[in-house]
């Protein structure tokens, strides 16, 4: 979306503003803090060249919490997500300022290896992207490169546990040597989740994990997110309000690179405090 359109939308929202509701993009409304913070982002700004993609975002993500990032296309939610495991590093023009702590440790500090970070902060992508290898090798990829298994039996065990946790084991246990790319879309996405779990991460980032899937596959992934939230902090970017309502404990609404509002899921959907949030979740913009 171009800047001009965005500004028009903001103006439009301003024109419709009701008393008591602000339309300005200023400080975040709601509680950015978490009771049991695990990932802490403080005053994060991201620039792509001259483009200021994320503006002064502060957000805490708790242990065993599912937080959904929502907002219109180009609002910076994916960019923020990719800051959390430093996937933005591979974009030459990207620059990140502010601090992001993972369990108290600055992930942008000089002596932290982004490769080791990504083993702790796993990521599931928008489109299922299994490697063109067998199902077994897809899951075993992470444990192999990180040397997590001492022998074949242990590796087998990791693969099995991961596939079980991803709810895929029963469907593929007899064809572990088949190509991962031969599975259906939903199965592929669960394979990608199994692959991520196999490395033993503490946080799982999901960038619109269901946008390429049909409703049944989506429901399975959502159930899975629910189960996984017992063990991991999960950050989900989604375009589906229903999905955010179903899977998340908290919701963060982004607009034009600014974190507009954060709150408990129930509250934000029943009682949004910012005009822009309300417009977005009621379908007037976005």
């Amino acid at each position: 979306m171009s800047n001009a359109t965005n500004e028009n939308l903001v103006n439009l929202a301003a024109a419709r503003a009701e008393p008591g509701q602000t339309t300005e993009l200023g400080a975040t409304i709601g509680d950015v803090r978490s009771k049991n913070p695990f990932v802490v982002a403080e005053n994060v700004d991201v620039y792509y060249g001259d483009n200021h993609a994320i503006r002064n975002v502060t957000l805490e993500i708790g242990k065993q919490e599912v937080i959904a990032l929502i907002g219109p296309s180009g609002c910076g939610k994916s960019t923020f997500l990719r800051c959390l495991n430093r996937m933005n590093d591979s974009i030459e023009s990207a620059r990140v300022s502010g601090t992001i702590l993972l369990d108290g440790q600055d992930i942008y500090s000089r002596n932290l290896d982004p490769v080791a970070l990504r083993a702790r902060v796993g990521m599931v992508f928008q489109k299922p992207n299994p490697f063109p290898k067998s199902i077994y090798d897809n899951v075993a990829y992470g444990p192999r490169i990180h040397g997590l298994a001492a022998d074949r039996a242990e590796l087998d065990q990791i693969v099995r546990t991961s596939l079980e946790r991803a709810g895929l084991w029963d469907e593929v246990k007899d064809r572990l040597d088949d190509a991962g790319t031969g599975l259906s879309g939903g199965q592929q996405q669960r394979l990608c989740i199994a692959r991520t779990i196999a490395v033993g991460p503490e946080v799982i980032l999901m960038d619109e994990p269901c946008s390429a899937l049909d409703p049944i596959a989506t429901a399975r992934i959502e159930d899975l997110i629910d189960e996984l939230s017992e063990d991991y902090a999960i950050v989900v970017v989604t375009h589906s309000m229903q999905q955010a309502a179903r899977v998340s404990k908290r919701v963060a609404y982004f607009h034009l690179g600014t974190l507009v509002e954060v709150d408990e899921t129930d509250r934000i959907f029943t009682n949004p405090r910012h005009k822009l949030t309300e417009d977005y979740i009621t379908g007037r913009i976005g």
Partner: protein
Amino acid sequence: MENTTLILTVCLLGVAGFYLGRSRSLSVVGGFAAARNLHSLPGYYGYFTAIWCLLPALAVLTLWFVLEPRVVMALLVDSLPQAQQDLPPGQLNLLLNNVRNFAAGSAIGGETNQVLTDAAAVYLQLQARSRLLLTGLVLACAVLGGVIAWRRIHPEFRARNRVEGIVMLLLVAASSIAIFTTIGIVLSVLFEAVRFFGEVPISDFLFGTNWSPQTAIRADQVGSSGSFGAIPLFTGTLLITGIAMLVAVPVGLMTAIYLAEYSSRGVREIAKPLLELLAGIPTVVYGFFAALTIAPWVRRTGESLGFEVASESALAAGLVMGIMIIPLVSSLADDAIKAVPGSMRDGALGLGSTRSEAMTKVILPAALPGIVGGILLAVSRAIGETMIVVMAAGLAANLTANPFAAVTTVTVQIVTLLVGDQEFDSAKTLAAFALGLILFIVTLILNMAGLRVVRKYREQYE
């Protein structure tokens, strides 16, 4: 009229046809203002008229050029006295040639006689008549075609569709030229090769180990029996190709990996065009680089290490050929790597791979089919390469696997067999066509396999 004048006149008629057709289309609907009542834009009516002016005239002209000499010759023979008509075909041809040369005013061998001067006069007369007929016919066709087209113009006439149909036919004709040429080449090589296999058994050619194509010209000549065992050529080709691939594949592949994954944009923008420049150097330049620089260097280095090295060695030719093929390998491998979706790379990095782990464990295996296809194309290029090996590999058909020895390749032998004065019915010359056929078949198979693999692999991700 001279041919050029005639063609020029027809073209002028075509241009005139364009304007006449265009203005008629406008006048039948009543001027510019009503031009929208025409089915097509006025210009299309112009093109339609011009095409009908040009096409029949040019067709007649072409046909005339093909048929005229035969007809004129047949008439000329008919006009000759009976004695000459009964001459054997060889002598008759000689006589006709003499007539033509005499008529054109050039000096001829042998004495002139009454028959010759008479025939020359007849020939000149026939030619003049033919020229007059041609001029009349062509101009008539042009005018008639133009007028017929011109008269067909009315508002509902679908001129655009007609013109586009003709343009499409032209495009089809243009694209079939390459196909028919290929078929022509294959057939001509095939027929000559079959003649060769009539003289030398195909098994001797394919499995013989002695290549010495000098055939005796005189019956009493010593030592030139002619031996056409092509195995030394095949092994020489394989040896040099093998050396070239040993150079080109690792270097090209590593270049591609660096350019696709590690280099900054600045480096890539400079390095890629430079590599492509390397691909644009004529192979003859590589050839003398090989012969004058690399070959002596290989020889000196080899000798200082205690090997016996021929001054023209397979190693020198192979090394330079390898350098020549690097850009081909690197650019095809680069394409293959770039075709692997970015999501693979992201997925690997997201699991905590380093860049090199992502490259070696995920991206390269995914790109492998494309890379293999590229290598097959490179092999086919190496086998067909001629200039470098002519200049640097030597002519001795040694059956050896020693890279320091001089060897020769299929392409080099084709060149040496056909260079200079040749008689085109000796086994020696025909052998070149047999070699060419083998070369053609092998590179065709490699190219087909390579292209197939590359294409199949591209589809996988699209």
